[in-house]
């Protein structure tokens, strides 16, 4: 924006240029005029002088010719000489009259008049002499001839006088022209000096008013390029330069802002890149964990069968040896079989926990027994705490249920436990205590606190990638995921340092009612699904091939398992139950038995080799012997698959391997109690 009253540089330069042009033009014109006028005057005078000289030459020539003709006439008295005398005289007179209209000086003009008078006098004198001669008075004429010569001499003198006057006039004129030329030269020199001075002044003004501001501009530009972002061009006098200064300052401000923005964006990009690297690491870690979970799931499944055999055999040994009459045997049972069974149970629990942790999350919040989740998590980290010389304590009432995804809930507890263990291992602290209480009507408050060093910055512990651990030990995402999971449940989480030392993480979650336990009576219309078998609705046709149980006979249980040891263990466990046990090593064999023998309860492994596994067998029973469907018990090392997805069975018809004798028998008894007599 142009300020009011700001002079215009363009106008100033234009006025200056016009002034220079006007002065230069005036000086040039004046010089030209002086030169040309002087030249013209000199030329005119020169031409006039040449003309006058020519006239004078003619006059001299004519008067001499006239004299000559006069003398000739005196010699021969021929009339032609007399006429020639008159003609020459008239011509000379006419030539003299030409002087009348020449620009002559007074002196020259006076000489002309004298010359004319002399000529007129000469003519009259000559005329008198010629008259004498004509009258025959030749002697007198000859005597007067000297008088005629005198007149001619006077005439010559007059002509010469005129020429001398003209020469004097010309000299004066030349002197005047010389002076004029000198004045012109001096004037031109002065004009040149004036023009140089004017040019100098204009140059100085140009430098002061244009170049100086431009130098300011350059200096400020250098300052800015040198890093001084606050350098600005000062206000300028002229509108155009003011506009340039304002534009330059705006540009500098824009550059400054752009630089700040770029730096900010660079920081953000750098931070994003770091986050990306860390996320990439975390992703890799999670992929590793995912792969590890899958591996753990497979490993646990494979372990379950031998572990089930070991546990079953150990319990059978313990029971048998305990019932032995031999004290040494009983002692040996107490010394060996019981620890064996106990360790087998511990191994079973560990495998179960691994399986539970490696399960895929459903992503849905549902009522979860908080104590069970805590127990599973603690079970997974118990060994680590023990090895580090730390303790895990739990005080969670079994009545507390929360709305959560059990996997994520376990993840929450394990993450906090890991953090606590790392902190206590690196510094001080001995125990992580996990407790939970009802918080109002609809909230449960889960508290995880240790006596370690506490948080360095409690406000930042939930920030992504915030970590105080060494770079190769933490991703900074653990507690961030904790917060994310809790928010997904509709809860809140906070972190703080305990007053007496140590860290405390408080999780508040929506409380939930315990899920309704299904009746122990067989579910009606259970649905069986399988990844490889289509869902077969339970058929309604009446039984046609099943063999009914004869009245008064003992109940029959068909055990289907491809592991011979497990078939034997189950058979031994049921040996005290007043039932008949039928054994089948695969599904086809079981189907054949069922078609030929009355069976009250089918206990089948889920994974078996052959064309039909446990799932196929369950489907076949559902289709062929639907009345028997409620009296089927699935025993599997991967019960999660039986409950979530593949087989939709109530928990009363599912038993996980490895199992204890009590678990097995209680489940069998429960099912048998519902069978019809």
């Amino acid at each position, binding site marked *: 924006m142009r300020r009011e009253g700001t002079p215009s540089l363009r106008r100033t330069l234009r006025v200056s240029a016009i002034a220079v042009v006007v002065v230069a033009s005036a000086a040039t014109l004046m010089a030209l005029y002086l030169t040309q006028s002087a030249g013209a005057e000199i030329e005119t005078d020169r031409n006039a002088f040449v003309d006058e000289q020519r006239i004078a030459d003619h006059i001299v020539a004519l008067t001499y010719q006239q004299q000559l003709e006069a003398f000739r006439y005196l010699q021969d008295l021929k009339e032609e000489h007399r006429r020639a005398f008159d003609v020459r005289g*008239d011509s000379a*007179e006419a030539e003299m*009259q030409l002087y*009348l*209209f020449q*620009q*002559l000086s*007074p002196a020259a*003009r*006076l000489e002309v*008049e*004298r010359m*004319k*008078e002399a000529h*007129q*006098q000469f*003519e*009259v*004198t000559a*005329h*008198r002499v010629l*008259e*004498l001669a004509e*009258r025959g008075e030749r002697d007198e004429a000859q005597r007067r001839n000297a008088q005629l010569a005198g007149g001619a001499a006077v005439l010559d003198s007059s002509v010469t006088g005129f020429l001398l006057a003209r020469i004097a006039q010309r000299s004066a004129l030349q002197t005047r022209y010389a002076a004029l030329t000198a004045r012109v030269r001096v004037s031109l020199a002065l004009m040149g000096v004036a023009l140089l001075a004017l040019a100098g002044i204009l140059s100085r003004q140009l430098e002061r008013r244009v170049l100086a501001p431009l130098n300011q501009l350059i200096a400020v530009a250098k300052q800015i390029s040198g890093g001084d972002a606050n350098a600005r061009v000062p206000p300028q006098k002229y509108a155009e330069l003011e506009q340039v200064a304002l534009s330059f300052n705006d540009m500098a401000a824009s550059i400054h802002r752009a630089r700040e923005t770029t730096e900010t964006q660079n920081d953000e990009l750098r931070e994003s890149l770091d986050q990306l690297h860390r996320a990439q690491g975390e992703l890799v870690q999670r992929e590793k964990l995912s792969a590890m979970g899958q591996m753990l799931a497979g490993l646990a499944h494979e372990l379950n069968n031998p572990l089930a055999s070991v546990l079953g055999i150990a319990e059978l040994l313990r029971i048998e040896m305990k019932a032995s009459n031999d004290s040494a045997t009983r002692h040996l049972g107490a010394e060996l079989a019981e620890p064996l069974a106990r360790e087998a149970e511990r191994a079973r629990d560990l495998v179960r926990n691994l399986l539970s942790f490696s399960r895929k999350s459903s992503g849905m919040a549902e009522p979860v027994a908080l104590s069970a989740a805590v127990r599973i998590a603690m079970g997974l980290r118990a060994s680590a705490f023990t090895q580090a010389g730390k303790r895990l304590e739990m005080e969670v009432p079994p009545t507390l249920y929360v709305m959560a995804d059990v996997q994520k809930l376990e993840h929450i507890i394990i993450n906090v436990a890991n953090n606590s263990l790392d902190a206590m291992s690196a510094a001080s602290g001995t125990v992580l205590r996990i407790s939970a209480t009802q918080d109002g009507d609809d909230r449960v408050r889960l508290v995880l606190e240790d006596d370690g060093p506490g948080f360095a910055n409690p406000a930042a512990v939930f920030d992504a990638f915030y970590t105080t651990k060494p770079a190769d030990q933490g991703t900074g995402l653990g507690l961030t995921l904790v917060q994310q999971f809790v928010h997904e449940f509709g809860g809140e989480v906070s972190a703080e340092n305990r007053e007496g030392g140590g860290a405390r993480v408080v999780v508040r979650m929506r409380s939930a009612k315990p899920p309704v336990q299904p009746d122990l009576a067989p579910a009606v219309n259970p649905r069986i699904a399988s990844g490889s078998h289509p869902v077969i609705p339970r058929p309604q046709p009446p039984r046609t091939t099943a063999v009914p149980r004869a009245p008064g006979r003992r109940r029959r249980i068909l055990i289907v398992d491809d592991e011979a040891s497990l078939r034997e263990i189950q058979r031994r466990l049921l040996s005290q139950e007043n039932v008949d046990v039928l054994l089948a090593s695969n599904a086809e064999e079981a189907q054949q038995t069922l078609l030929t023998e009355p069976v009250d309860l089918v206990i089948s492994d889920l994974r078996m080799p052959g064309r039909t596994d446990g799932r196929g067998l369950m489907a076949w029973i559902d289709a062929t012997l639907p009345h028997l469907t409620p009296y089927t018990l699935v025993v599997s090392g991967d019960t999660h698959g039986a409950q979530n997805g593949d087989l939709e069975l109530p928990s009363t018809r599912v038993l996980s391997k490895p199992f204890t004798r009590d678990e097995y028998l209680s489940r069998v008894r429960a099912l048998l109690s519902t069978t019809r007599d």
Partner: protein
Amino acid sequence: MAFGLLAILACRDPEPYRIGVVLTATGNPGAVLATEFINRNGGIGGVPLVLVNLGDSPTGSAPLALDAAERLVADPRVLAVVGHSNSSASLAASQVYNSRHVVQIAPTSTTPLFNRAGPWSFRLVASDEYQAPFIAAAVAAEHPDRVAVVYVNDVYGRSLNSLLAHELEKSKIAVVATLPYVETESANQSDLVSSLAKYRPTLLVWLGRSAYFDDITAPLGKALPGLRVLASDGFGGRTARLDSSVLGEVRHVRLVDMNRADTTLQRVRQLYREREKTEINDEAALSYDAVLLLAEAIRRVGPDRARVREWLSHVGRDAPAYNGITGPIAFVNGGSRKAQYSWGIAHAASPVPRRAP
């Protein structure tokens, strides 16, 4: 005091207007009479007119005329000049006046060359181109047996002689002799008379002035008794030594009809006669009119040389002619007046100073 000074200045006589006069002794009184007439009637708009009179200097000489002209133009107060008395002098001085931008009114200059004098030069008579036929007609009317022509050998006499020779030739009048003279030629006057006598003319045409004629009147009357003389305008109308008993009638060309019925002219003639004890001549009457004409110009356009010249250039052309005592004045022919010739009879007069050589 200042008021008093202003009053004194206001009461001072105004600076008079000045007109230069370079005339003969017989012509100059005409200008004087005109000036007296103007001043008697309140001057020019209340401003008196003064003549810068160079006296009766030998104005007929061209070199002396130049000197007089230079002296006049050197005075910036001189608004115009009336002069000079003959063609040679007027023509020579005209270049001074034209180069210095001063109006010149020549009362009696008749040479044709004066038409080329310049825009600042006017004359109150016609060119000799008209006088030559007038004289030739008079010569023819005389039926002379032998005609001789004497002319003054200057620009006036040479041109008039040339024109007259042409006219006489047209009229088939033979001229037995054509003789020049110069007014400074006192030593050879007898030669001129002797030459004339040899040719025995019965009619002499005198193309010159009266002064030199006075010198040869007596020998001429003795050598050629009864000789009739016709003189040009330069003769002036009177001669000091005219002896009609010796010489025949002497007639001369008059540029002004002095007998015209103009009361002013007659009153001026009377005044002139009373003051100069002789009859007024052409130069005096024309000078009278020249002064009146310049006074009228100054009265009309103010005391400015250029404006006076401009006003004069319109007189008789796109402005009315000026009525002087010599008749209407109209510069219709290159600054010259329309011809109005008549013949006068020369008479004896009291001696007048001889023009200086």
